[in-house]
């Protein structure tokens, strides 16, 4: 029994290492492949030391920031999905589906129309919007037992995001000037995002990392139920509040950089749980490579399929995420996390 556990641990270590290798490989591909005129072989020869100013510009100024942003966004969305699912005890709780991303997008659109434009301001606004969205959804979940039924909660979230989406569209129509600025961003994508945005969100992401490290243990105790967790000496209310804060900061940051991208927070923990089992700490570890892997893979595909133009990233994540949602719903018994 114990031996089996250890080998399983070992297997998981190997698996994690494999995933990290895959991530590195995908990152390299992400540097090499693009919608533009620089071919993979040109980019490769440049990386190997040959002079090519056009390739240099495209790879280091366009594709490298894009890859870095993809990694950050993937990690943030994957981890926040796993956290939200653990705290809502609902395998379908996804920041995009439940309206957290829509809250962030709405807040940014509102702020832009009201005259804000600085990049850093946009991030904090998005984070506040995500927080409000998160609180709304969890408030709904506690209301009259809506949250006891995972599927009902998802429906409420979908209705809430649809509403926020319509309001965002309305704001955009209302103000043509900011519309042009926002419309580009309101469709989730990694194309043309600025590296400065990434630097601007790094502090809050670092803060979240520390916070998650602190609450991971009590959070896994929370999976045993609120009473059990208090019995083990934890404070469920406090843990929940901190998780909500983390989710809001992470989703807000990711949305501020890349725009709303849905279904990633559903798919990533779904796969991670398949590898890691039910324990939230191990799931979080697995989310770290899987999230960027999926985002980068989707991004690469989005550059290639309709080349020379590009596909919004959200389209691809929806195409692969919706079947996962349907499969999860069709499963006879939805495990309560």
């Amino acid at each position, binding site marked *: 029994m114990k031996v089996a556990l250890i080998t399983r641990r070992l297997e998981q270590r190997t698996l994690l290492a494999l995933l990290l290798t895959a991530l590195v490989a995908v990152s390299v591909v992400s540097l090499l492949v693009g919608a533009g005129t620089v071919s993979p072989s040109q980019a490769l020869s440049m990386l190997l030391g040959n002079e090519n100013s056009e390739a240099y510009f495209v790879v280091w100024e366009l594709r490298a920031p894009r890859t870095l942003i993809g990694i950050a966004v993937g990690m943030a969305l994957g981890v926040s999905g796993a956290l939200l699912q653990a705290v809502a005890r609902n395998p379908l709780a996804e920041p995009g589906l439940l309206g957290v991303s829509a809250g962030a997008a709405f807040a940014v659109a509102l702020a832009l129309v009201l005259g804000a434009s600085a990049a850093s301001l946009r991030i904090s606004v998005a984070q506040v919007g995500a927080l409000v969205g998160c609180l709304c959804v969890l408030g709904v979940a506690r209301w009259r037992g809506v949250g006891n039924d995972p599927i009902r909660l998802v429906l409420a979230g979908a209705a*809430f995001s649809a509403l926020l989406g319509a309001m965002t569209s309305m704001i955009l129509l209302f103000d043509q000037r900011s519309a042009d600025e926002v419309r580009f961003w309101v469709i989730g994508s990694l194309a043309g995002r600025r590296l400065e945005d990434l630097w601007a969100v790094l502090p809050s992401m670092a803060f979240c990392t520390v916070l998650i490290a602190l609450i991971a243990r009590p959070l896994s105790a929370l999976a045993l139920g609120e009473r059990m967790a208090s019995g083990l000496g934890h404070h469920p209310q406090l843990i929940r509040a901190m998780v909500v804060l983390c989710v809001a900061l992470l989703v807000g940051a990711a949305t501020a950089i890349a725009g709303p991208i849905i279904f990633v927070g559903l798919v990533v923990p779904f796969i991670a749980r398949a590898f890691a089992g039910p324990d939230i700490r191990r799931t979080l570890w697995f989310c770290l490579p899987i999230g960027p892997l999926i985002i980068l893979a989707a991004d690469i595909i989005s550059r290639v399929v309709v080349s020379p*133009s590009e596909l919004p990233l959200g389209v691809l994540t929806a195409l692969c995420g919706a079947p996962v949602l349907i499969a999860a719903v069709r499963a006879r018994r939805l495990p309560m996390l």
Partner: protein
Amino acid sequence: MSLSMPPRCLKTEFRKQDTAALLFSAPSIKAADEVSVIPPTGYWRWSGRGTSILIERRAVWVNTGLLLALLLAGIAYLCLGSLTLDPREVISALAGQGDMMTGFMVQELRLPRLVAACLTGGAFALAGILMQTLARNRLATPGIIGIDNGATAFAVASVVGMSVSLAPSAMALTGAVTAAVLTFGLAAGSGTQGYRFIVAGIGVGAVFGAITQLLLARVAIDTANAAYPWTVGSLNARSGGSVQLLGIGLMLGFVAALALARSLTILRFSEATANGLGVNAKARRVQILLLSVVLTALAVAVAGPVGMVGLIGPEIARALSTPRHVPVVAATLAGALVMVLADLAGRTLLAPIELPVGIVTAIIGGPWLLWILMRPQRSHA
């Protein structure tokens, strides 16, 4: 109750009287009997020569009221806009009198759009109430379970010219059928009553929504921009042909729905009960599904996915009506009314900017949907 009473009190004395005589006497309708017939509470009865027709009073009032409201909303719709007209001017313009400019404004611009609004609203709401009844699920409207999105994706394919020369209506129909087959196929086994069915439908809708985006991303930016308002639901981008097609479809569909009304009422019970009452539930449900899908597709071909009307219209109709029937007529009228008012609001509230009607209905319908979800669950002891 059972705790506070001794069991003896629960024993019910059934009347022994002339029940046997009642059961076994051959039914006979005599003229003398006719006099003593009292219509059930809330109905008018019209009878003569072996026929008897019941008319629900409430339904008459509700439908008349909705029709009047629709008429008023229609006049307001023709009056208001970039150029505000007097109701008298509108009426004389409709009669073909008055000055040229007003005549053009009313007859060529606003009236066709009003007609399109009424037809699409009616069709969406009728399709909505049919689907809800068929699935025995208040949330199962074509808009929510992905059928609108399926129709939109296929219709966009024809608009952006993916080497398809078929009319948008035909393409929308293909898409709607595909989405319906997917959603109902995926729900097979788990039934259509629970929330699972709805979420599966949302998933299907998300796939088709993504396909729409993908199609738009593939074409030139101008074509995409032209198709955009239509993908969120707008009466701006309608083509005359698809409106005519919708008019014919709605007329036939409405008659078919009326013919199905009695079965619809029974189908609200479980399948077994419906069969026990002599309704061939399976066959009827296929007919109703087909009707609902066709109506949705024709309406989407005109206005894009304004699916929320399919939720709001039936909700209003049910709130106004009694639970004795499925309010098919009231839902159609309420849908048309909502669509006319929503498009009027979209045209005038933020003028000169025009809000697509799909956004207006989403903003009204979203909270409504949330409210439905938040209601306490109905419990069955």
